[in-house]
């Protein structure tokens, strides 16, 4: 009897211990704090502003967040594999211009136009990827160069004119909803779920993560790292193109200026969402939560009547805080796990 009681006592203590470590582990995960921040902000806004919880505002917020998700995915997929894509916004802009040109100038059906626009994005991504892989140059320099090129193409093709003659059926995707839930959000959730699944359970996902985590080690363990880098940039082009198209669909017109402010958004959402900067980590929940977080912050700044120009300053501060915290967290967990910190 005594024995068994002692046993159960032990078990209870063990279980308690387990619960507390599990709690700790949750908080050690970077996406948990983002989710928490979203919940707090959401509660704060709902209490302070009666118009916050209106269906229209929620609809609006979730659509913007969904677009941020796609923009962030375009950056995250490259960061995960150890690179970065400065030309992300320009790819988006080029896609928008191609889609607008097809639908407005040529009068082609949305299906053909969308396919061509997506193809453009993918080709841009493949262009980046193949040059990085073949030349061995840093992705920063290569995408910097392609940023110049794509921007030049945008201006050359559009000549500054927006394409406003976008067929109505194409705007359904960006403006319509399924039982109150915008198609955009639905699409973002599906894609996020797929990405989360791929990174967790598929070989390709693991290979991408390994490439970003430690290129040399990944290569030595037989992963075709070249293919992985190429793939990540191709997918980045695809996501940028998708974001561009959804933007057109939401706005109902194709603006050549689309994408010019995507870079900070893409980095902010991806990094705050727990995409490790030196590659090797990805969190679908984190990206969703941080996209929501940034949308809420933007919404809040407007309600506080803050100049839009300072919005990016806030983003800068948030990103700086996020990376600082991440760095401290890493240092702490390294100290806890191992006596000596590994060479970075």
């Amino acid at each position: 009897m005594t024995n068994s009681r002692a046993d159960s006592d032990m078990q209870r203590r063990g279980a308690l211990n387990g619960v507390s470590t599990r709690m700790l582990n949750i908080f050690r995960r970077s996406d948990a704090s983002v989710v928490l921040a979203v919940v707090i902000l959401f509660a704060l806004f709902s209490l302070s502003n009666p118009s916050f919880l209106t269906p229209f505002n929620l609809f609006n917020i979730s659509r913007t967040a969904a677009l941020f998700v796609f923009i962030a995915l375009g950056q995250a997929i490259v960061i995960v594999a150890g690179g970065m894509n400065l030309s992300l916004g320009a790819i988006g802009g080029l896609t928008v211009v191609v889609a607008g040109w097809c639908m407005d100038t040529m009068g082609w059906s949305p299906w053909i136009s969308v396919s061509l626009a997506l193809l453009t994005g993918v080709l841009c991504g493949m262009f980046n990827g193949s040059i990085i892989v073949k030349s061995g140059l840093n992705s920063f320099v290569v995408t910097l160069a392609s940023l110049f090129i794509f921007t030049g193409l945008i201006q050359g093709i559009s000549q500054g004119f927006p394409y406003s003659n976008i067929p109505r059926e194409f705007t359904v995707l960006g403006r319509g909803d399924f039982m109150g839930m915008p198609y955009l959000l639905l699409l973002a959730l599906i894609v996020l779920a797929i990405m989360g699944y791929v990174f967790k359970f598929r070989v390709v996902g693991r290979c991408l993560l390994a490439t970003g985590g430690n290129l040399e080690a990944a290569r030595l363990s037989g992963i075709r790292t070249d293919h992985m880098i190429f793939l990540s940039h191709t997918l980045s082009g695809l996501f940028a193109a998708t974001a561009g198209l959804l933007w057109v669909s939401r706005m109902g017109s194709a603006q050549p200026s689309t994408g010019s402010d995507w870079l900070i958004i893409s980095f902010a959402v991806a990094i705050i969402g727990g995409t490790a900067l030196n590659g090797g980590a990805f969190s679908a929940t984190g990206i969703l939560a941080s996209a929501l977080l940034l949308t809420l912050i933007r919404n809040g700044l407007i309600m506080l009547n803050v100049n839009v120009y300072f919005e990016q300053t806030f983003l800068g501060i948030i990103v700086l805080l996020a990376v600082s915290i991440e760095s401290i967290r890493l240092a702490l967990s390294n100290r806890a796990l191992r006596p000596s910190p590994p060479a970075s």
Partner: protein
Amino acid sequence: MTRRHFALFTLVLMTAALIAACGGAPATTAPTAAPASQPATTPAPEGKKFTIGISNPFISSEYRTQMIQSLIEINKEYMERGITNELVIESADTDVAGQILQLQNLINKGVDAILVNPSDVNGLNDTLQEAINKGIIVISVDQELNTPGVYNVGIDQKEWAKISARWLAEKLGGQGNIVLIEGFPGHPANIARMEGVEEVLKEYPNIKVLGRETGRWDQATGQQVMSNFLASFPNLDGYWTQDGMAIGAMQAVMAANPSKWPVLVGEGRCQFLQLWDQRLKEDPNFETIAVANPPGVSPTGLRIAVNMLLGKQVDKSKLGGANGLSFVIPIPVIVTKDNFQEVFTTVCKDKPATYLLDGIMTDEEVQQFFLK
């Protein structure tokens, strides 16, 4: 082997792209190139032909595109008469330093007059002064500069904004909650316009401005800002906005479709009139105002430059502005419910949606600024 081929391939590709782009140049300027050969057969009566340079630092806007296109078109007229050469156009997205470089290149190319759409209030002063010292006629179009010796040709931006602001205030009956969506903060034209709006609103103390935000003269940004405003302030009675953003803002209202539409102002662009028409089908009592901001002030400026080059004396009593060097161009079109159908069915009939309602003075009309 493959790497080497790849490298060569990239090289060839890039060179080809370059050549293609350079080769594309004559093709796009073909309409202007064709008449250029004509003066050779009918030589100019007085020998020397004038060269006019254009400096434009911002190209991603319909306004600027229409401006450049109509400049080329109007210049063709003078080229046929053997008065001018082809325009020297320096137009690219660039910063203040870049525009200084543009202007220096124009000076170096020996132009007789410069039409400049300035990107900065004071940043070009010294460079423009150098041009004036060389005897070049300098005209600032669209935006007013206070540089001594520089002529300005443009509409009165402050009055322009007051027209729609006053319409809004009166439509609201002098009271209500409104928001403002402005252009680039700090841009000379935007400053003048917002001053005008503030002056009007001062006369109506019962109109409350709940928020003021920039839409960067960009349709998409205007749409986003308006969506956010609509969400944050459900009791909005009206809003004031301007060029380039009014279409986006109205699209945001259409998407939200509130039970009570805010009173809104528009812009002089065919696409806006399309939205107006669309709305009228749903609500026959819908009313708004669209005041044209004509890109045509630049070709009008070209006409003034040509007349000055031909030696005509400017009638200083007709000029206004801080230095008394501003040619103030009247606003060509104001669209209200009274003339909406007329403008929409005639002017916008065979124009693309992006067309801005415009007005270019004829050579005869420009003579009013000169001594006989």
